[in-house]
């Protein structure tokens, strides 16, 4: 083994009941480099990293770390050997303080006695945050900070172990541009000053080209190849990942835009958003941009009746409507694909079919009982229309990849034949292939005359998909830009509260 390399994995195999997740994967990481691990959803990236972190154990394969054979039983072993990780699903303990989360598993105890030294932990956490330029109070409860901040805490925690290899599994999925820049600084600092290697997993190609030195690609549990970043361009990277060439972003065609279908007037919800007004026209895609925490989700939740607003009016086709509960919204032809698949989307233990029919079971009743033939027909049509990859519709949704889960959720709402479709971060955490399919689908729906509201934190997505862009800042509408005028700079300016 060359002592250039901090880690070498050879011929790693891992299977789960019914799935062969890794089929002989190799991976070599150079010391002090940032190494991108790329692949579609379900390619096996997280599985490979979880093996390094002691969460999974491979059936076969060899791992050399810092020149020594490496095999760990649990995360604590991995940390002790010098590997730390930010897991893909950031999962803090909401009932503990930020400092306690950072020190979880390595609590500082007072000399002699075994009692916790809370003060010292807060102090050290503060020092760590200062060092990384993170502005979070270490003594507040984890449940009180935003998702973005929780992500930063997870990053800080992983860095705090002083490991030789830090694994970051989609660390930016909940971050906005500002925080991503901060993360870049942290990574550069690790690489250049401390000579620490970083494995970086992301579905956002821009990030790869900004921060990574080398790239390895997995596809379907197999190792496809590695190279240094200079030898890649986007097209080559995508074709390695998906096995064919394609565009990263689908560019929506101009659709015929009709009359105003939905109008929201002066909607407010205390401490969340204030006096939000906007219009949505038939066949239009309204992009909603803003920084994390701007209140976009809350506006849509209020519109949908999930978290009713304190005040404001909603008009559909010019008529005033009362929406107190989601069922009211559904009846008015509104559909809502939420941003958090796990929390507010899927019913993990139910089949794809059951997941699809949930909002409008009424339509599948025959004599009071469910009509399994009709359910099957409708779901089958939908499955073919948007190409959901699954052996059968009886499959439990939890067994699908993220992209396919997202498609099932979109199908769920399309089956209600909505006029207005709200999509909140429809492609978060979804690979390039699936993303482009979802974009194409949005385009087609608009063409069919559906009206779509799309919240997205990804600038290119907003720019390529929207007919009109509404920008929010701290719970207020800070401006609207039409498709032709829209630029990244203008959106960012509005999102950070500057006037145009």
């Amino acid at each position, binding site marked *: 083994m060359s002592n250039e390399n901090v880690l070498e994995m050879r011929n790693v195999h891992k299977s789960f009941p019914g799935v062969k997740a890794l089929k002989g994967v190799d991976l070599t990481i150079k010391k002090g480099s940032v190494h991108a691990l790329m692949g579609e959803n379900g390619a096996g990236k997280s599985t490979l990293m979880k093996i390094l972190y002691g969460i999974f154990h491979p059936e076969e394969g060899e791992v050399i770390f810092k020149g020594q054979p490496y095999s760990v039983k649990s995360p604590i072993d991995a940390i002790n050997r010098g590997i730390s990780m930010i897991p893909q699903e950031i999962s803090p303990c909401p009932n503990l303080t930020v400092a306690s989360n950072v020190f979880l598993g390595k609590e500082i105890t007072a000399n002699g006695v075994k009692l916790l030294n809370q003060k010292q932990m807060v102090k050290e956490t503060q020092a760590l945050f200062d060092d990384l330029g993170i502005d979070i109070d270490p003594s507040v409860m984890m449940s009180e900070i935003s998702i973005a901040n929780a992500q930063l805490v997870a990053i800080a925690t992983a860095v705090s172990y002083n490991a030789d290899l830090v694994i970051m599994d989609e660390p930016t999925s909940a971050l906005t541009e500002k925080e991503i820049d901060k993360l870049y600084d942290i990574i550069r600092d690790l690489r250049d000053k401390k000579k620490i290697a970083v494995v970086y997993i992301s579905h956002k190609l821009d990030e790869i080209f900004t921060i990574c030195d080398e790239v390895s690609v997995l596809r379907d549990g197999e190792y496809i190849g590695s190279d240094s970043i200079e030898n890649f361009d986007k097209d080559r990277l995508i074709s390695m990942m998906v096995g064919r060439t394609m565009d990263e972003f689908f560019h929506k065609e101009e659709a015929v835009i009709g009359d105003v279908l939905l109008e929201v007037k002066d909607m407010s919800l205390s401490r969340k958003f204030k006096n939000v007004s906007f219009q949505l026209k038939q066949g239009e895609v309204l992009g909603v941009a803003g920084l994390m925490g701007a209140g976009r989700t809350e506006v849509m939740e209020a519109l949908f009746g999930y978290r009713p607003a304190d005040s404001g009016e909603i008009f559909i086709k010019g008529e005033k409507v009362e929406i107190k509960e989601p069922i009211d919204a559904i009846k008015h032809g509104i559909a809502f694909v939420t941003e958090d698949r796990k929390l507010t*989307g899927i019913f993990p233990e139910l089949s794809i079919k059951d997941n699809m029919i949930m909002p409008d079971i009424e339509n599948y009743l025959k004599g009071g009982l469910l009509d399994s033939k009709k359910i099957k027909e409708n779901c089958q049509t939908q499955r073919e229309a948007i190409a959901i990859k699954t052996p059968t519709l009886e499959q439990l949704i939890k067994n699908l990849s993220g992209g396919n889960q997202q498609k099932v959720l979109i199908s769920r709402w399309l089956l209600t034949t909505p006029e207005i479709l709200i999509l909140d971060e429809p492609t978060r955490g979804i690979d390039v292939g699936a993303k482009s399919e979802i974009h194409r689908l949005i385009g087609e729906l608009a063409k069919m005359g559906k009206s779509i509201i799309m919240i997205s934190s990804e600038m290119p997505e907003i720019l390529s998909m929207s007919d009109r862009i509404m920008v929010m800042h701290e719970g207020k509408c800070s401006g609207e830009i039409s498709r032709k005028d829209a630029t990244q700079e203008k959106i960012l300016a509005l999102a950070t509260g500057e006037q145009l």
Partner: protein
Amino acid sequence: MAQQKIISRPSLGAFMNKYGIVVIFIGLCVILSIVSPAFLSIRNITNVIRQVSIIGIVSMGVTFCIITTGIDLSSGSMIALISVVVASMSQNAVSDSQPISIVMPILFAILISLALGAILGTINGSLTAFGKIPPFIATLGMMTAAKGAAALYTQGRPVGNLKDAFTFIGTGSFIGIPIPIWIYIVMAVLSHILLSKTKFGRHVFAIGGNEQAARICGINVEKTLVKVYAYAGFLTAVSAIMLTARTSAGNPTYGLAYELDAIASTVIGGTSLSGGIGSIPFCVIGALIIGVLNNGMDLLGVNAYWQQIVKGFIIVIAVLIDARKQKRK
């Protein structure tokens, strides 16, 4: 996408995964019929099913509750209360020897009792759905209060002297099969259809699987929960009526710890205490396992103290080797 090669060849593992508990049940029956020849007689089998019917019907309601991530601790006490209420209304004649005696057509007595069960269930459901009290506590409160109410109603006495037309429900037969078994079958079919073939049933699973998502899908979570507990209360009332008819008396001491047997049956039948998973046919198997176990140990003359120890072990072991078991809650 390539990752969807989910292999589904029918392996032994997959079979055990799905029907492990049935295998356990059959194994238990085989062992018992070997060690005790009386076990496999038609008469004994009828006996076992009739005995199981009471807990079995309660456990179907518990299955609904548990699927929504709830629980029902009040069923035992509700049986006590409803048993004295129905007994007091099914009297042969107004009599001083009984603490309470009301004479009315037994159909009314039964309807009133079923309604009472549903109302008590509705209270449980409202406390947990609207009051946001954990169902464990809401039904614990009901458990305590209903037991007291039962004793208060009769001043702690049993109520006998029941009409024959009423006791027929517990002791009679129809084409050779005891009425309680018929009722058990009807309730099982009804509950199965309700749970797996109706909108309501799907909503029950949805709430248990992901309450937030259920709300987004336009499901009225509160109303559904209330219905679930009301249905559980209704089934408990059915059970109480059967018990009263079978023993020809109502008694405020009835139903002691039935809720635990019902919950054990449900969980042995593979319903996950973390919600979202469960089925009525398996719940029936779960209840039969407990029933067969009790019957078998009596047939074998196992010492009463050892019976409890064995039962404790079997509960744990059945759940331990059931491959479908859910992760720790």
